[in-house]
Structures are given as C-alpha cells and as structure tokens.
C-alpha cells in the first residue's frame, strides 16, 4: 500500500507539471518556427498573472473571466513581443541568414532586453513586493478524494491545461493556421514558396504560445495567492528545461518532460527543503545535455 502522502505529492506534481507544460509549449512552438529561444517568455507568464489580478481587484468578475483576461493579454504580449524583439532582426529571408548564429544571438539578447524592460516596468507600476490575491479567489478549497486531500486548484489547473492542450492539438492538426505553423516549422523557405505568409504565421505562433504562458501565469498566481514581477523567471527556466529534455521541437515530448519535472520536484520536497528542489530541474538539464543531447523524445539532429 502506498502512503497517501506520496499520492498527494504525485497529484500536486501533476498539476505543477501541467503549468510547466503550458509554458514549455510556448517555448517549443516558437523554437519550432524560428529556431530561436524566447527569453521573454517568463515575462509573458508574469503579465498574464498581473492582468488577472488587475481585473480581479477592479471588478470582481467570475474566475474564468480572469483567465480570459490573461489569455487576451498573453495574445497581445505575444504579438508585440514578436514585432519588437524578433521582427527587426529578420531583415533577410534567405535560408542562410534565417539559420545564422548572428540572428539567433541577437534575438536571444533582444528578448532578454525586452524581458528586463517588462519586469522592471512591472516593478515600477506594482512594486516589487508580492501582491496577494483576494481571499475568495484563491483556488485552495480542500477536496477529499479517497485517502488523499487535494485542493480545487489542482483540479482547475489540470482541467484548464488539459483543455488548452487538446485545443492546441486541434488547432495544429485541423485548422489552416495550424497547418501553416507546422509547415513553417518544418521548412520556412519551402512554406514561403508554396504561398504561406510566413510573417503572419510567426505572429500566430507567438500569439498562441504566449496565450498558453499567460494562462499558466494566472493559474499559478491564483493557486499560490502571490503575484510579483519576478515570478516568471523560475517557471520560465523549468519550462525551458522541459523543452530541452523533450527534444526542442517536439510538443508531446515537452509535455511529458514537464510532467516528469513537476512530479520529480514535488517528490523532492519530501526529502530536501524546498530551496534545494530547484536543483532537480537544473540537474535534469545537465544530465540530459550530457547523456541525451538531442532530448529524450527528439528526432536525431546533426549537432548539439
């Protein structure tokens, strides 16, 4: 018989992993189409959380309205991020410069710069202290499931993430937008030749990815009840680890690795203090890079 405590940690880990998965999908989609890493993704998560918080304190809407506000802000953030930090560096569209290191590094640094600006801007507007979510919005009412006590937040996070993941699969497999996203990530130049508007597709990718990140932000904010400008950094790194473990451009791989990461972390808090549990993610990252450099689920790539 398994100790109920571990079952409980497993459930918490699953819902934690689901939020990492939502973040990791944003990274993976953007890496797929542009071959670059978006370092401002953590800030999109923070923006989503703050959008929900502002709406909640202003007009006390139902909880799903807050999530929709986060989604809207996420979409807007994704759009402006692409225009600001990525578009100016795509001056040439030939294959060599799309894959060049100069372009990859300048977008990496420009997204870092944008993330600094957004984070410091939020600190000026909201202060760097934690802002607590009004009590009635916290999703932590205990629910008893068999021998395990969970909170409503675990179910809400799991349900919302599952719906969004299924929605993403529908979008990618069954719609024209999804088809063009897959085409661009497969071969940007080929997609251009057959008449796909690559610029619009890239924007759509940013919008979809950032909506997922922003949703993760508001869900975690409501779950823990604390929202602050620097909150996006650690989940951003975790999601990034999940993406690398999953093989950079594989969405199912990223989701599975995010769940593994979430469970491993919540299990680790059983044995060590919570400060050390972040070590798990970095340890996984280094081990993956050394032993499975192309990721656990990634297709073979030429060089790592």
């Amino acid at each position: 018989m398994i100790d109920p405590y571990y079952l409980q940690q497993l459930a918490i880990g699953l819902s934690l992993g689901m939020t990492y998965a939502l973040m990791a999908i944003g990274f993976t989609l953007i890496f797929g189409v542009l071959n670059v890493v978006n370092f401002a993704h953590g800030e999109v998560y923070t923006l989503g959380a703050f959008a929900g918080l502002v709406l909640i304190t202003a007009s006390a809407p139902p909880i799903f309205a807050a999530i929709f506000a986060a989604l809207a802000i996420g979409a807007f953030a994704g759009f402006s991020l692409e225009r600001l930090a990525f578009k100016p560096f795509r001056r040439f569209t030939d294959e060599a410069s799309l894959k060049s290191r100069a372009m990859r590094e300048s977008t990496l640094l420009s997204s870092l710069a944008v993330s600094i600006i957004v984070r410091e801007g939020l600190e000026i507007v909201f202060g760097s202290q934690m802002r607590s979510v009004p009590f009635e919005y916290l999703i932590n009412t205990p629910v008893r499931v068999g021998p395990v006590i969970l909170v409503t937040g675990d179910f809400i996070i799991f349900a919302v993430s599952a719906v969004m993941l299924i929605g993403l699969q529908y979008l990618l497999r069954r719609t024209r937008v999804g088809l063009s996203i897959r085409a661009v990530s497969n071969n940007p130049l080929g997609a251009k030749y057959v008449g796909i508007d690559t610029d619009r597709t890239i924007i759509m990718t940013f919008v979809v990815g950032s909506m997922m990140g922003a949703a993760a932000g508001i869900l975690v904010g409501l779950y823990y009840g604390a929202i602050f400008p620097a909150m996006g950094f650690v989940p951003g790194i975790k999601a990034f680890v999940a993406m690398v473990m999953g093989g950079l451009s594989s969405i199912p791989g990223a989701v599975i690795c995010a769940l593994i990461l979430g469970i491993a972390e919540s299990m680790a808090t059983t044995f060590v203090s919570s400060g050390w549990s972040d070590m798990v993610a970095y340890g996984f990252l280094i081990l993956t890079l050394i032993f499975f450099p192309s990721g656990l689920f990634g297709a073979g790539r030429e060089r790592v």
Partner: protein
Amino acid sequence: MNASKSPTRLIVPALVLLAVFAALPAVLASFDRGYFYQIANLSLIFVLLASSLHLVTGVAGLLHLGHAAFYGVGAYTAALLATKAGLGFTFTLPLSGLVAALIAFLVALPTMRLVSIYFAVATLAIGQMLYLVMLNWVDFTKGPNGIIVTKGLNLFGFDLSGRLGTYYTVAAVVTLCVIAIGRLSHSYYGNALRSIREDDQCADAMGVRTVRLKMEVFTLSAFFAGVAGSLWAHMTGYISPGDFKFSESILILAMIVVGGLGSLPGAIIGALLLILLPEGLRGMGDFRNIMVGVVMFLSILFLPKGLLGEVSALKLVRQQLNAAWRRTDNGIGIGWR
C-alpha cells in the same frame, strides 16, 4: 627602425593609465566622499568581469549565461578563507581565483562538447546550481544572510584598507588582469579562439583542438572572475548570494554586447557605461534599471557591432600597442606570439 620606440605610438594606453592612476584618484580625493570611491571600485571590478567574459563570449563566441556564479565562487572563497581560516588578502586573492578556476574546470569537463544554444543552456544551469548552493547551504555559506568580511585589504603586511589604498589596490589588480586578458585575446592563442567562434567544425578540421581550447578559456575566464570576486568581498566587507544571481550574469553580458562583442576596449567601455549610467541617472529613481534594458535593446538594434566593434578595436590595439606584433612576410599583422 622599431615602430614601438616612436613616442606617439603609446599615447592611448599612457593616457588611460594616467587617468586611472593619477587623474581619477585626484578627483576622488577632491570630492572626498566614500560613495564615489565605492562607485569607482565597483566600475573597476565590473571592468574586470566584463573583460573576463569577453574572453569566452566575445573572442571564443561561446554564449556564457552563468558568469556571475564564478564571480560569486571567488567572493565566497575569499570571504570564507578570511573569516574561517583567518587568511589575509595576500592569500585569498590568488586562492579565490584558483578555486573558481578549479570549479569551472570540473563543470567544463562534461559540458564543453556542447555547442551554440546547448552550451548557453548548460552554463545557465551551472550558474543557477552554484547560486542555489550559495543560497541554500546555510551551514557553510550562511545562506541569504551573507557573510561579513572583517579583513580589509592587506598586501604582504602593508595595510591598504584606507579609501585611496583600496582604490589603488583594486585599480592595480584590475589593470594587471586586463593587460593579461588583452595579451591573451590578441595573440595567436586568441586567433585560435576566434577560429572556434567563426566555425568550430572548420577549426577542428584544421587541427585546432576546439574542446580543449574551450575548456581552457572557460577556466581562465572563471579565474579572472574569481579574482574580481575576492576584490569585491574585501572591498565591500559584506557579500550575499543576491550579488551573484542570474541578473548579474545578464548585466555582464549586456556590457560586452553594448561595447561590442569580441572587442576588449569595447567590453571596458560597456562596463563603465552600464555601471556609471544608472548612477548618473540616480535622479530618475526607479527608472534606472529599465534604462539598462533599454540601452541593451537599442544597442542590439542600432549598433549590432557594439560601440567599439571588433574590427576597429583590433585596429586601435594594433596601432597603439604593436611592440611585439608579428607580421607575415607581406605585412599583414597577425598578433602577438
């Protein structure tokens, strides 16, 4: 006729040295405010940090996102040696560099085969792991409370802990390290590193031992970061993990990007700009941190080669310091031996 004998050749380095060792202390002494000394020392330490990152990211082209952690290792080594073993600055200065280099070498062993974004991710993870150790190993590092270093600067029995003494010590150590880094990055060795940056597969095929070179340069740069860390620990007298977190690594990276990747004078200018600009903008209050981001963004957008790009920096170095600069038979300068 040896070109290096002509007096006009050494004007720029002479002026810089004069400014650092004579003009600036005179200005500082005339203001006589401890705060200005702090700023001067801080900028010098960041000049050293930016120069050491320049070696890895600028010359060898390896995006290093965990540099501040090695700076932290150096600072903690100095602080722990000074408080627990009672060693003076004479010993902690080289030892902290060596410990940082040793740790860098150990983490480099498995990770240096990685390239491009994988390398960047690995250094980020290493930096974060070291930071977590500093933050969470409370028994050893005192965790978030930080360590108070009571030992001031004291070299070979001479007490240098006064304001001017501290400044001169920091300035001398930083100048020596920067000269060493300059010689290294403008030598044949530096050219080999540049070949890794341009195309590591090609360099490998030409017989450059890329993995070994990467390990060497990573270790060397950690050594200089460790030296900077021990200067910081003894200068401020108090260190805490917050000084060495990810955003510091990014600040150092921003310095060399703003100054110009691959250019040592650029790295120095970038470090001075990003330390002094926020201080100058103190009147703007909270906006100064945003300015770091804005300056970084604008410089990537409008000055992709940085304030003083590599080509012009090489030209400057060649004109001013070409004492032992080797030329090929047809007169093309190729660097120091």
